[in-house]
């Protein structure tokens, strides 16, 4: 029986009951400076500390003018060249205009605190094992063939394809051989890791990355942005990995020009193909994702990786950390009305 109830009535116990507002906003101020300046809770201030540590660890350091501009708006050093952001874009006569424009970009720091909007589920947002257990009835997830908990490997079933390792955290360190994951061989870092079966190996494949937010007005999930990534499944988010990326128009399923970029590198993306094209399997993918999330309305923020298989869409990853770079290579994603409503509702 579907758990989705028209009109937004929430199934009891599923949607977080406690307030999820991260801090009170003035509602008018959606700028990045305002967001950072208003932080007043330990967890968000600590998130800023983590962001700042990552920023300041980057070598070589950026020039102070550009570095100060990016850091103090919540962007990591690579986003300057990647998105074409620069303090030179600020009109001294009208700096607010620039702040408003920049506010349409999802910043790295904003992406880090966005999962807090998931309320009581936030701690589990990047726990793949939890995600796989929770979502398996509503989403077309890749088959779970094993998991590792408390240092022990538990086999759930056989697979005919390759085995992909999905860690608890967003960083995915590569594809370990199954026999390396013997009981007791793991460390704490490997806990909550899942092993899934996928119909592809180390070769580059096309992955549709879909970012979904909860629209507080419609009380339904909506596609914030999407991108078509081409690269090996286990290296899409690894620092230094190079891949090709096309922005997808969620309204049409059309993928734009293909750009090549390297994760974390301070370099502008290189255009490798100007031509747009239809994303194969877009509508089945987005239909499966949205209908699944409507049935289990737990997440206010979620990102899914989907591959197109002969049997239809297959979800190969779920995380609450949105891909700031890939989603915005061709422009910001936070300018849409529903996105602004989300920011106002949750204060992120």
């Amino acid at each position, binding site marked *: 029986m579907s758990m989705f109830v028209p009109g937004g009535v929430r199934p009891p116990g599923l949607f977080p009951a406690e307030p999820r507002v991260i801090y009170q906003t003035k509602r008018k101020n959606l700028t990045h400076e305002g967001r950072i300046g208003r932080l007043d809770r330990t967890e968000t201030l600590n998130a800023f*500390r983590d962001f700042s540590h990552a920023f300041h660890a980057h070598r070589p*350091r950026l020039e102070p003018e550009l570095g100060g501009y990016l850091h103090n708006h919540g962007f990591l050093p690579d986003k300057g060249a990647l998105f074409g952001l620069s303090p030179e874009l600020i009109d001294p006569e009208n700096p607010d205009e620039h702040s408003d424009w920049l506010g349409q970009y999802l910043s790295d720091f904003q992406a880090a605190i966005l999962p807090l909007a998931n309320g009581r589920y936030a701690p589990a947002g990047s726990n793949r094992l939890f995600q796989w257990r929770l979502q398996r009835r509503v989403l077309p997830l890749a088959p779970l063939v094993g998991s590792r908990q408390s240092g022990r490997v538990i086999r759930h079933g056989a697979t005919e394809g390759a085995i992909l390792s999905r860690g608890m955290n967003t960083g995915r360190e590569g594809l370990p051989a199954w026999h390396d994951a013997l009981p007791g061989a793991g460390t704490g870092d490997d806990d909550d890791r899942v092993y899934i079966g996928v119909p592809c190996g180390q070769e580059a494949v096309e992955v549709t990355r879909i970012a979904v937010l909860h629209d507080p007005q419609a009380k339904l999930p909506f596609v914030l942005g999407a991108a078509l990534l081409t690269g090996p499944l286990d290296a899409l988010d690894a620092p230094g990995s190079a891949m090709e990326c096309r922005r997808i128009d969620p309204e049409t399923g059309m993928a734009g020009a293909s750009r090549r970029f390297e994760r974390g590198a301070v370099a502008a993306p290189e255009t490798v193909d100007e031509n747009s094209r239809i994303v194969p399997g877009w509508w089945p993918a987005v239909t499966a994702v949205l209908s699944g999330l409507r049935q289990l309305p737990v997440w206010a923020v979620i990102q899914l990786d989907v591959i197109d298989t002969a049997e239809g869409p297959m979800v190969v990853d779920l995380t609450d950390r949105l891909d700031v770079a890939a989603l915005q290579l061709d422009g910001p994603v936070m300018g849409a009305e529903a996105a602004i409503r989300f920011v106002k509702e949750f204060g992120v």
Partner: protein
Amino acid sequence: MTLPQHLDPEHHHRLMESIQDPVNLKYLRRFMTDFAKDPSKITDKQAGWLYEQGFLPEKIELYDFDTYDIALYLSDVQRWMTREVNGEYSIVFNNKILFTQVFRNFCKVAPITAIWRNGRIIPYDDVWERCVTGQLDEPRKFVIKPLGGGGGGNVYFVQVGRKSAMIESNEPGRERFTLPVERLGDIFIGAKVPFMVTEFIYQGEFTKRLYPLTVNTVRMLIVRDPETLLPHVVRTVQRMGTASSYPIDNFSLGGLSAEIDIETGVLGPAVAAAGPHKGPRWDHHPNTGEPIAGQVVPKWSTVVEDMKSLFLQVPYISYCGFDLILMDDDVVVLEGNSYSQVRLFQMHRPLLPDPIYTKVLSHNGIFQK
């Protein structure tokens, strides 16, 4: 200089890692945002070394890390955290009216003539009215400055005659201008914060001689020993204006700072943190040639004892950087700073070798043993 026993070489790292409460995390955020935009030229290695220990890049140039271990210096993060030492009583220092109202009971302060707030003047006596109606018996000087904040921004020195007033300020584009007395209030056009008008205090001969074009104030850092509850003078410097800081003596704007030996009142050489005189140590004033190093502040021991006595009379205050105007026979307490800037002290030598000072910091969670 080797580390004294009460200082661990890793204490800065430990403090940076231990900060968890929102109030201090906000100071950490302030540090991180300031660090990112600091234009000082430093290497990547220096950047990591300073960042991990809570120092801004500018400190590479300002502090003598070749002579003194970084563990001996109060970091920028620690300095921000000193803001909480006085707790709710910090407001006495953050609002210059409150400061004047409280401290005039215990010491000589600059009398308030008027307040400007929300577009109108609130006179404290009849002096302002006599100024704007041309009824002064003789020309008088006033100082107009914002009620809150520091850093010396937007300070106006006003000489009022019977028909016109001559105004000098450090505000770009309004360095020197005149107004008819009836339009004296035009000074505040465009102002967004409240201002206070006080009588100008004429400094004594000693400080006047150092640089006669500015009022050269003394900054004295006093803390309360948390065990004995007695005041402890941590460090004192004589500030001096220069041609680049004129018309004020502000250290951030190119003024000089010379350490005063607390025991003897003898001045050391002067340094600048900004402007054309940054770099060398000045035994003589770079503009006037007046000797600085070796000069003795007259009646110094009386000044120190008077300030300790004052501190005893305000027992709810634990940490303050007082700004003093030394007159020939008296001291005027110009203002107090609850989280005093420390560059003007530490450019001479670091603060943390002082065990009573670190005891105060430790007592307030600002120093990790």
